């Protein structure tokens, strides 16, 4: 099996910066990403000219990406593209035979095995250290009708527009909460779609306390936000704050959406409904981290009350509770591209320090230089997600027949019944109702089941655990696994 010093999972802003730092320090590294090209979801729009409609390209970002790619090319970084990491396994030496101490991390030079699937004819790689930078995906809040064709995530709509140059609909409703709503609605308007309304559960008014953090050192981001707002005004897009989509109606695809007011914690207010005729609904309630690989490795997690999700713990060097495993980028709490780049740098430097490619002094000095910038970004991140925090009152929209787990077609009624009968552990509910057992592995329903348990039982989220995750993290064809095993035998 091929051995490397550091395997970097994810080729976005964090993964690219980590790769460059690590390769510069002389480590033998490999960067793995599911896309054809590096850049991740953030930079994808600069890679395909099919998506480069006028005004959708930010020159500064483009320069940044090409600088990183040039750097990676000069350092001859090995990039496994279109490759999925479907499992991470710790060296057997990580485990002791003493059951009381399981697992212990006494090993000084461990190794991790990554199980891969992709066109590059590499089925597994052994690495001495890992940097996990897989990024995030849209969080969805279910309500009646959300499973109809024509409903898509904000990220999905943006990818269609910017990567494929395809406008997903004619009359589009953009709904949810978070800064991406403005960006997607503005870009879709520019591309010629009719945005019938932008529906945001949060309100600009609840953000005034954190205005200091927004302003301090983050003028650039505010200007960007203002530009989106100007675009939406130009195209006369109605902005509905403290509103939510209550219901999506349609036979075989979306035909109309019912929108109404919500209070400051998200409870729908009856009698405020109005109907919009639409063919597409783009939804996004913030993001959730792709933390399954970190969880598979046994990294400890904490619950973030604004993001309402579990995040892997890490120290100031980005190392997790499992030694030699680092995290960087949005998986640590949705800090955006700039924070991801800084965290990637730190993780790359720290991993090289851990493996002896850099002296401890130089690691400390270099991290010290990055920290002031990191702090500013963190302040912005915390203020932003406090403003756009998930509002649990929206749970009232989930009626008994609303599908919570789409993959296994599990309705909210079945889950609520299981909770009422005493199954108050998310993994117990999974075993009982099949929620989260489907192809997406609970990525979309897991957090909702936690919310339902917390609401019905009054338990705090800290007491609930995330869904168990096991390999394969993504569906793998058995034929591919069998072929790999045979290849190993022949060798």
């Amino acid at each position: 099996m091929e051995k490397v010093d550091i395997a970097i999972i994810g080729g976005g802003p964090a993964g690219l910066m980590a790769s460059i730092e690590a390769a510069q320090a002389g480590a033998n590294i490999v960067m793995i990403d599911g896309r054809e090209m590096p850049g991740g979801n953030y930079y994808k729009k600069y890679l395909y000219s099919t998506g480069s409609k006028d005004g959708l390209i930010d020159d500064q970002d483009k320069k940044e990406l090409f600088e990183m790619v040039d750097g990676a090319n000069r350092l001859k970084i090995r990039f496994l593209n279109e490759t999925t990491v479907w499992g991470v396994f710790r060296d057997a030496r990580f485990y002791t035979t003493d059951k009381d101490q399981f697992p212990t991390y006494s090993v000084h030079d461990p190794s991790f095995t990554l199980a891969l699937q992709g066109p590059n004819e590499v089925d597994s790689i052994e690495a001495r250290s890992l940097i996990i930078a897989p990024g995030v995906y849209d969080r969805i809040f279910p309500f009646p009708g959300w499973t109809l064709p024509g409903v898509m995530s904000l990220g999905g709509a943006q990818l269609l527009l910017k990567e494929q140059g395809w406008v997903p609909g004619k009359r589009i409703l953009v709904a949810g909460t978070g800064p991406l709503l403005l960006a997607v609605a503005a870009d879709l308007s520019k591309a010629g779609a009719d945005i019938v309304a932008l529906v945001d559960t949060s309100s600009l008014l609840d953000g005034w306390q954190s205005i200091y953090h927004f302003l301090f050192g983050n003028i650039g981001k505010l200007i960007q936000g203002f530009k989106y707002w100007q675009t939406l005004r130009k195209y006369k897009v109605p902005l509905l704050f403290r509103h939510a989509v209550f219901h999506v109606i349609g036979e075989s695809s979306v035909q109309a959406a019912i929108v109404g007011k919500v209070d400051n914690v998200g409870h729908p207010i009856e009698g405020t409904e109005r109907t919009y005729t639409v063919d597409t609904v783009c939804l996004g309630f913030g993001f959730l981290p792709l933390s399954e690989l970190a969880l598979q490795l046994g990294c400890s997690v904490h619950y973030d009350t604004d993001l309402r999700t579990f995040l892997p713990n890490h120290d100031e060097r980005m190392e997790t509770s499992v030694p030699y495993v680092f995290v960087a980028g949005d998986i640590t709490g949705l800090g955006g591209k700039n924070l991801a780049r800084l965290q990637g740098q730190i993780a790359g430097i720290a991993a090289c320090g851990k493996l002896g490619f850099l002296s401890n002094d130089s690691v400390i000095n270099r991290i010290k230089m990055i920290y002031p910038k990191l702090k500013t970004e963190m302040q912005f991140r915390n203020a932003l997600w406090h403003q756009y925090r998930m509002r649990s009152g929206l749970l009232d929209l989930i009626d008994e027949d609303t599908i919570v787990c789409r993959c296994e077609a599990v309705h909210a009624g079945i889950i609520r019944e299981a909770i009422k009968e005493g199954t108050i552990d998310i993994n117990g509910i999974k075993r009982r109702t099949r929620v989260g057992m489907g192809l997406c592995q609970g990525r979309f329903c897991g957090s909702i089941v936690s919310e339902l348990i917390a609401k019905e039982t009054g338990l705090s989220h800290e007491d609930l655990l995330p869904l168990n995750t096991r390999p394969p993290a993504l569906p793998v064809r058995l034929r591919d696994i069998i072929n790999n095993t045979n290849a190993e035998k022949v060798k």
Partner: protein
Amino acid sequence: MILSKMNEEIVKENKFTIFINGQPVIASEGATVAATLLAHGFKAFFNIEPPFSPNRYFCGMGVCMQCLVTINNIQGVRACRTKVQPNMVINTIG
């Protein structure tokens, strides 16, 4: 290796024929199966018996598994992460 391929010149204007449910349609090189299906008016990508919901384009980044279609007789392929190829046979009906 692939890094060096990246430049602004990846203009993908080549067109070729693919088959959706047996019907020949024109597809653009570089487009995903999902974008091609949407461009040809397919909102439901695959119909499964109730209570399951029809497959459709959703996350676009390969994590939600909601856009699965049958491509060249292989079931359960992610339409959002698969690029169209000449003479590809896509099925959206069971």
